[in-house]
């Protein structure tokens, strides 16, 4: 069946200089089927959405620090606006920042390059996937400006709060929000099928299963997780939209429905979703750690099997979000066990990364700093997760700021630290120039330190009994004390420092496109295939198409003078 070799050789060089023709702006940037351009579309859309989500965080954190006062750049935050801000901050950061950047942008950019092919297997479906994603983003943004404003029923959208406009006060926003999320799922399903099929069928000749770089494995396994878990929520979204618009009673207990059903449908997707975004970040960190420790990944197959184990277990932990929703205590027992169990493969992954560092020739470049920070910060998120996974502790901590701080200690390392790690790592490949290391490191410290100063106080507040999703704590005498308010002000001040520091990154990111020094093909002296081709890679990626002779992590091989050994270099 394999018809791999003949078209390859026929195509070799076909796209070379002779074929270079000027494309219109529209065809080059907006209507392109090139996986690299689609990756950039996802990346820049995600970055723009991150600015919106960050601004929302600024507005509601200011309200919490200085309740009822005028917020510079926003105005007075009303209770309805506060609900819309926290809801859409969560939705945007997970569905319109973490997903498009980690899965779609890095997946699109890295999968064909690291597997040694010229594009995705279905380039036009790839383009369609981005276009559907863009429509979903526009629907969500439009929902902020309709009468009643953006959806205010929290990002988890529990009914009846989400299904009845008399409760959430956002009659149009609620439906537009749900439609936007459902449309986005279609976009990522199309993208995911493309990723999985490309990785299964289109690897370079000679690349065996265990020659695939870890980050590709993880993006593909994440895509499979997404594809296998999102279905019930698609069905749930249809049911919720019907409840909102047609007046059905799927989730209305007064008329025979069941609100907890939504929670099951939501979290059956929602928990694997954590791993859907975590795995690509873990993969990015694996690549960076091997390159900058100049060492072979300590246990390639261990990481592979723990990834599989994480993926499988992630389908059996969802009800740990529902310990106080009235589920059967016997069921809570089971879900406590599975939740604690899932920390084992992830801990193993972290140990493998630490073992990779041990004895390595570590270079503290900016990407490496981000990767190391990822390990440290994610560890805090993971360990506090064990507190919450135990149903006994969760009953006290549930819906408090402890939960909030916990998942920000997982999602921030994933969606921000992991993304910065990946961007600083592959920037030379994407744009052909190096980013400024000094500014990169200043930005690193000005992000990491404020991040901890935001969320460590929130852990303390949560343990002190501060409930989530409260507009103004002055109305709660036991939470309005000065010591608690000081912690809120500290978190807000740290947030502002962190948000302002991102200007350094944007300055460095866009400035280096013109002013950075030329990167050359392989500035980090790494093994994987994307470093074989030009920076940035031209149309068709490789000339000629590469063949693979070894695994991706052959660093500091004793028989070689060079401390790296590219995957495509023929053995002597």
């Amino acid at each position, binding site marked *: 069946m394999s018809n791999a070799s003949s078209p390859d050789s026929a195509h070799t060089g076909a796209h070379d200089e002779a074929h270079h023709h000027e494309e219109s702006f529209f065809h080059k940037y907006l209507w392109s089927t090139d996986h690299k351009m689609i990756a950039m579309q996802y990346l820049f859309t995600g970055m723009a959405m991150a600015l919106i989500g960050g601004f929302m965080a600024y507005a509601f954190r200011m309200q919490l620090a200085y309740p009822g006062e005028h917020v510079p750049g926003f105005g007075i935050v009303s209770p309805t606006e506060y609900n819309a801000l926290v809801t859409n901050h969560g939705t945007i950061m997970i569905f319109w920042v973490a997903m498009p950047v980690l899965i779609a942008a890095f997946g699109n950019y890295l999968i064909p390059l690291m597997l040694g092919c010229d594009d995705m297997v279905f380039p036009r479906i790839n383009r369609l996937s981005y276009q559907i994603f863009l429509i979903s983003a526009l629907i969500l943004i439009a929902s902020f400006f309709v009468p009643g404003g953006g959806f205010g029923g929290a990002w988890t959208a529990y009914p009846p709060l989400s299904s009845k406009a008399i409760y959430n006060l956002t009659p149009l926003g609620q439906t537009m929000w749900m439609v936007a999320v459902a449309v986005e799922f279609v976009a990522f399903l199309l993208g995911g099928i493309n990723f999985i*099929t490309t990785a299964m069928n289109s690897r370079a000749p000679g690349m065996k299963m265990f020659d695939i770089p870890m980050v590709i494995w993880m993006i593909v396994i994440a895509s499979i997780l997404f594809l296998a878990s999102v279905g019930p929520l698609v069905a749930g979204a249809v049911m919720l939209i019907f409840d909102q618009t047609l007046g059905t009673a*799927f989730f209305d207990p007064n008329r025979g429905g069941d609100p907890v059903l939504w929670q099951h449908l939501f979290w059956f997707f929602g928990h694997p979703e954590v791993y859907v975004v975590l795995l690509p970040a873990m993969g990015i960190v694996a690549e960076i750690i091997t390159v900058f420790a100049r060492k072979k990944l300590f246990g390639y197959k261990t990481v592979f099997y723990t990834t599989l184990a994480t993926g499988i277990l992630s389908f059996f932990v969802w009800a740990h979000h529902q310990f106080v929703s009235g589920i059967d205590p016997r069921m809570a027992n089971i879900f406590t066990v599975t939740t604690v169990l899932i920390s084992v493969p992830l801990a193993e992954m972290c140990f493998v990364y630490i073992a990779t560092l041990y004895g390595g020739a570590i270079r503290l470049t900016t990407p490496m700093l981000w990767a190391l920070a990822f390990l440290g910060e994610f560890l805090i998120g993971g360990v506090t997760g064990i507190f919450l996974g135990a149903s006994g502790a969760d009953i006290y901590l549930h819906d408090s700021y402890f939960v909030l701080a916990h998942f920000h200690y997982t999602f921030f390392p994933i969606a921000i630290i992991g993304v910065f790690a990946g961007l600083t790592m592959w920037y030379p490949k994407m744009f052909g120039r190096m980013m400024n290391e000094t500014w990169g490191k200043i930005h690193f410290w000005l992000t990491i330190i404020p991040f901890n100063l935001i969320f460590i106080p929130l852990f303390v507040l949560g343990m002190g009994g501060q409930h989530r999703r409260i507009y103004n704590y002055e109305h709660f005498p036991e939470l309005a004390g000065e010591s608690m308010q000081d912690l809120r002000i500290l978190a807000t001040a740290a947030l502002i420092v962190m948000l302002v520091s991102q200007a350094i990154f944007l300055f460095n990111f866009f400035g280096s496109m013109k002013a950075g020094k030329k990167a050359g093909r392989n500035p980090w002296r790494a093994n994987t295939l994307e470093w074989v081709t030009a920076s940035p890679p031209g149309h068709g990626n490789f000339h000629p198409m590469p063949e693979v002779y070894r695994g991706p992590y052959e660093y500091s091989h004793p028989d070689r003078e060079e401390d790296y050994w590219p995957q495509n270099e023929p053995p002597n």
Partner: protein
Amino acid sequence: MKPIATTRSVTGIPTGRLAIWWVITSEIVIFGGLLASYIMHRLGHEEWAGYAAHTNTLAGGTNTFVLLTSSLTIVLAHKAAEAGDGRKAFRFIWCTIFGGLTFLVIKSLEWTAEIKAGYTITTNNFWSFYYTAAGLHGLHVIAGMIIMGIISFQARRNKELQRVELIGLYWHFVDLVWIFLFPLLYIAK
């Protein structure tokens, strides 16, 4: 021009067939979530058997027969495509589209009668599930018919004949969903 990536086949399975199986996987989970929700409700509500008694088993049964027959014709279309006979595949694809159309006509008559009798999507949760699940399935029937229409004209010119197999796989899946819906919504009374 197709990229090199599309023409490779490391697994030995043609890329299109591989992708359609992943599409079906994702669809199984969507219908699986909906039907699991329905079954959980059904088990908790004895009275739903009484509501289900008002569904039209004859219409549902006829539709089952129509869909199964249309699955046969799409297999015959695939067989013709394998033999390289695009025109014959074209005719069998249109037989299948006609089957899908018959299914939709019967379904519309059935729903009209039920809505006139006062059983609408808001009557109670049984009817909400009934219309949601059958409606979602109906959308898949319509989508399949549109795609078959496009593929049939390519097939007639003997182009992209492998696509006949791919739409056949999808059509079997749509058929199979109905095989689950029919007993769950009509027969279990």
